[in-house]
């Protein structure tokens, strides 16, 4: 969401070659070219989201919703322990997963972006990170089940290495398994942007810092970290939006014990409580808007990228 069209290089020169007389006709052409896409997005994205906001104020009866405006679904949300619990769980798992993807993704990006200067090896490593995405998302999620169970691969390996006597049972069908699964699936969205920013750092800059007597800890803190910050922000936006909207990973890896707001939406739709689902959808949208806006305050992406 960062690469604004105005900042694309070379456009000025291209546009400059076009004299204005034909401008009016060209405006029509531009409008005609854009119309299908803009209409599609308006009808099928903007309108549905507005509809969600509207329905959140409708009256919910046992099996149906009526377009009679009321605040009762909203009041129900903020007085229901189940909903509020899901809200806290969502925020907690989001923060933990974000921290985990950053902690794991940053060193990997540091290695790929800064320490591998051979473009071919750099590409190979990045492709290696992306290849798992060619498996179905749901298959990637369920692949953690034979890994983490009490008879799973991790427990077998640890027992063989005589590191544990009894299998660890908290690995599967807990909050931990959800976090592990999500971290593995989304960490790549953190690695990519950070590695991209780091690969643009001039090696001479680090040489200079070293020549001036800075140690590696100091170079990391004062040179590398600030230069990679836009990448961290972009990665954090990707991960946050995806984790906050999740429901499949908790459903498959927590044995329905961990319920995020997304899971509650699915349950409510399943029991035809559309107005309640709409309330949660609006809450989720607001959380995301706040998170994205908050992250964007850290850096001016238009300037940095």
């Amino acid at each position: 969401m960062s690469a604004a069209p105005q900042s694309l290089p070379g456009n000025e020169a291209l546009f400059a070659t076009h004299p204005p007389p034909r401008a009016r006709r060209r405006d029509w052409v531009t409008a005609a070219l854009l119309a299908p896409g803009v209409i599609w997005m308006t009808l099928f994205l903007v309108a549905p989201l507005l509809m969600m906001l509207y329905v959140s104020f409708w009256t919910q009866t046992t099996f149906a919703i009526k377009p009679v405006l009321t605040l009762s679904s909203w009041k129900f949300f903020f007085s229901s322990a189940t909903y509020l619990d899901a809200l806290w769980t969502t925020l907690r798992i989001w923060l933990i997963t974000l921290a985990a993807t950053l902690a794991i993704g940053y060193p990997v990006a540091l290695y790929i972006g800064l320490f591998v200067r051979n473009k071919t090896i750099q590409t190979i490593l990045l492709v290696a990170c992306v290849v798992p995405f060619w498996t179905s998302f749901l298959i990637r999620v369920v692949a953690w089940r034979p890994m983490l169970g009490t008879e799973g691969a991790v427990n077998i390996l640890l027992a063989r290495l005589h590191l544990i006597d009894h299998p660890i049972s908290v690995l599967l069908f807990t909050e931990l398994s959800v976090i592990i699964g999500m971290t593995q699936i989304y960490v790549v969205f953190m690695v990519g942007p950070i590695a991209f920013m780091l690969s643009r750092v001039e090696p001479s800059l680090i040489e200079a810092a070293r020549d001036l007597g800075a140690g590696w800890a100091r170079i990391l803190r004062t040179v590398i970290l600030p230069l990679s910050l836009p990448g961290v922000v972009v990665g954090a936006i990707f991960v946050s939006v995806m984790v906050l909207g999740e429901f499949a990973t908790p459903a498959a890896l927590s044995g329905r014990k961990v319920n995020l707001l997304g899971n509650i939406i699915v349950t409510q739709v399943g029991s035809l409580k559309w107005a309640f689902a709409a309330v949660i959808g609006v809450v989720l949208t607001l959380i995301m808007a706040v998170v994205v806006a908050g992250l964007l305050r850290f850096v001016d992406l238009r300037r940095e990228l």
Partner: protein
Amino acid sequence: MQSPLRWPLLAFMVLFLIFLYAPLGVLGVLSFQSGPEGGPQFPIVEWSTYWYRHLFGQVPPTRVAPLPIGPSLLRSLALAGMTMVTSTVLGVLAAQAFRRRFRFSGAVFYLIVLGMIVPGVLVGLGIALLANALGLERAWWGTSFVAHVLYTFPFAFLVMLAIFNRFDRSVEEAAWSLGVTPLRTFRTITLPLIFPGVLSAMLFAFTLSYDEFSRTLFTTGGAQTLPLTIYGTFAVEIHPNIFAFGVLTTLFSFSLLTVYGILMTLSVRRGRRVAMQEGI
């Protein structure tokens, strides 16, 4: 770069790749578990292709029901095809418009990109609510289709934007100045030049739609797509037939990637041959 960090980071990188690939490796190994009594965990009782045959209904019926993939696979392929064509056309058109500056270009850009940012569960919910309010039946070829295009069109658009950005405009201008109509110019000059980008956009759109789950959940109605069918089996006990299916669907993705690679090579080679004939 020389630094005390180099070797620790390399070790971390290796561990990271294990973290990324181990579950898939374990899944692949366990898909060769014996059946029907072999469970979805180690140890492998006996190596066999039982669960692959189970997938295709080639084994006598047991308590493990076969995965109902047949019709949902066809639906998913059809849906991915429709989504691919539509989003690529929309993406090329919109990116073509972005080649010149216009008012509100920033707003239009963000409107399009919003489609890949808004989580699927919200998109699906919104579309389902709107369809219900309008009294429209939800179906994979209708509501799911529009939801998928919302998601893949931005990808196609961004790919085409990047392609047009590196595009030499003078060839088109030469055609125009020779009196060739804009439409014919697009077909004979522009399209062959941007073809690699179109191919990438199509690949993106097809694979994203084929695997799309959260946007489909609320929008399909009765007849389910493949990811929904797979998700349905998670609720109950899982069996190694899911693993066998995972291996096959991964192989399918890689064969798509191979086709893409071949088409790409041919396209590049053709471009080079044309350039040589023209003596450029």
